[in-house]
């Protein structure tokens, strides 16, 4: 078996090893590649930026801890942007595994930077089972679905919630999701109540969400870690997503290199077999 035949039949564990080494390199040698901003991310940023000050916005934590690397930078950047505009933030989650905890820790941490107060400037509604019924129910009354916040405090005791009854008082929905709940927010909330909405999602979901951007059902899209990095650049506060782009760049190059070499090996092997048979 020659080199190309062996390369084509390479054990997948060599590929895993190469990926592992490539991921490790930027930790030793930071590269800081310049990032350009896509039209979809810019539209998202502009939509949030053009909100009147003190608008009430829903910041939705619909992602599992497994996609923290892609989604958390979006929520952090979103919370910073919204607090900098003095927006009132209502956070909630349709994910039982850690959604409310992540919402709590991120909003409290960012709120401290901007001197915001819980109950007046931001509220965490927590989690409720059954996303379809939750989304539909909030269209009638948020209090009917979430009678208390994540800590068990009745909504009537939170000053922010005194002026918010349902979606009519919500000026924008900043949805960050790694699963199909994004589709439900679009088809139920945006379609049924015409609330402007932007989606931040994992890179895998981004191709599907382009359909929503094209149909103007969402104002903008942040796709994966690149989308998060673009938002950080626009906000002028580079964070973990910006640093993660180095790793993503190198791994993409590795995969492209392996694919190209694999195809070269494929054609050389095929040619050799043809010669041998003739």
């Amino acid at each position, binding site marked *: 078996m020659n080199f190309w035949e062996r390369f084509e039949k390479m054990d997948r564990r060599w590929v895993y090893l190469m*990926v592992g080494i490539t991921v490790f390199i930027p930790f030793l040698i930071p590269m800081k590649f310049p990032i*350009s901003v896509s039209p979809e991310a810019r539209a998202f940023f502009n939509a949030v930026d053009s909100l009147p000050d003190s608008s009430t916005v829903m910041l939705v934590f619909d992602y599992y801890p*497994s996609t923290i690397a892609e989604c958390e930078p979006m929520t952090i950047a979103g919370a910073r942007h919204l607090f900098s505009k003095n927006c009132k933030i209502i956070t909630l989650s349709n994910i039982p595994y*850690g959604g409310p905890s992540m919402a709590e820790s991120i909003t409290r941490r960012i709120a401290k930077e901007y001197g915001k107060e819980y109950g007046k400037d931001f509220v965490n509604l927590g989690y409720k089972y059954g996303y379809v019924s939750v989304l539909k129910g909030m269209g009638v009354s948020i209090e009917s679905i979430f009678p208390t916040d994540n800590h068990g405090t009745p909504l009537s005791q939170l000053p922010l919630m005194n002026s918010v009854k349902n979606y009519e008082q919500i000026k924008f929905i900043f949805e960050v999701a790694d699963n199909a709940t994004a589709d439900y927010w679009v088809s139920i909330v945006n379609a049924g109540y015409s609330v402007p909405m932007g989606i931040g999602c994992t890179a895998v979901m981004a191709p599907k969400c382009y359909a929503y951007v*094209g149909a103007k059902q969402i104002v903008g899209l942040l796709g994966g870690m690149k989308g998060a990095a673009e938002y950080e650049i626009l906000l002028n506060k580079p964070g973990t997503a910006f640093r993660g782009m180095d790793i993503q760049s190198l791994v993409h*190059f590795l995969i492209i290199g392996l694919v190209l070499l694999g*195809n070269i090996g494929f054609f050389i092997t095929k040619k050799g077999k043809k010669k041998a048979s003739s």
Partner: protein
Amino acid sequence: MVRTAIPVIVAFITGAAMTVAFFLNEKTPFVGQISEQLLDWLIIIGGFTLLLGVVSILRVSWQSVQRRREGWVYKIATIVSVLVMAIPSLLPVSWSPLFGRFEGSIYDWLFMNLQSPMMATMFATLAFYIASAAYRAFRARTPEATLLLITATLVMFWRVPIGEALLNHLPGDVPALVNKYVMNGVNLAVQRGIIIGAALGASAMSLRIILGIERTYMGRG
């Protein structure tokens, strides 16, 4: 007869009520309230089903331990994990700050320091799997496979900063062309086609279930 008829009748009534309620004002007497009630019932039933799952996993794991089936030691780890996470979180916070679900509790510590990193690790293994899958699958065996290979390579370049910088050296604004014609062109059209097809399929199946034509989900028909 009863085992088949009652679920079919319930499916019909609830399905029809929800369909009709979609076209009526929420404040409509009777029908509007039915749909709200059904949505509330769904939330309540969902809570009970969580208990069903916990009971099931404990029962199966305990049976494996009792019968000393292969890997029974790991079943002990499963049972201990379930109990250690569940019991402290159910106890009132007033008894101890270690109880409950909030910051500082045993539940929160285990979730943030054990479960979250494990979940993130599993997701991260996708990077390795995608590399090996791409290496194996992206071969120019046929014209369609070649087209797939070229498109995938372009999108992989476009998606990262240095790749975009390299594409900018080619004549024409290649990144903008990829965004416009690949992502917002071909990709958009295909995604819409699949979404429409899947939605029609789901709607037809829903209609068959509501009308009682499809009963395979009950194990009958």
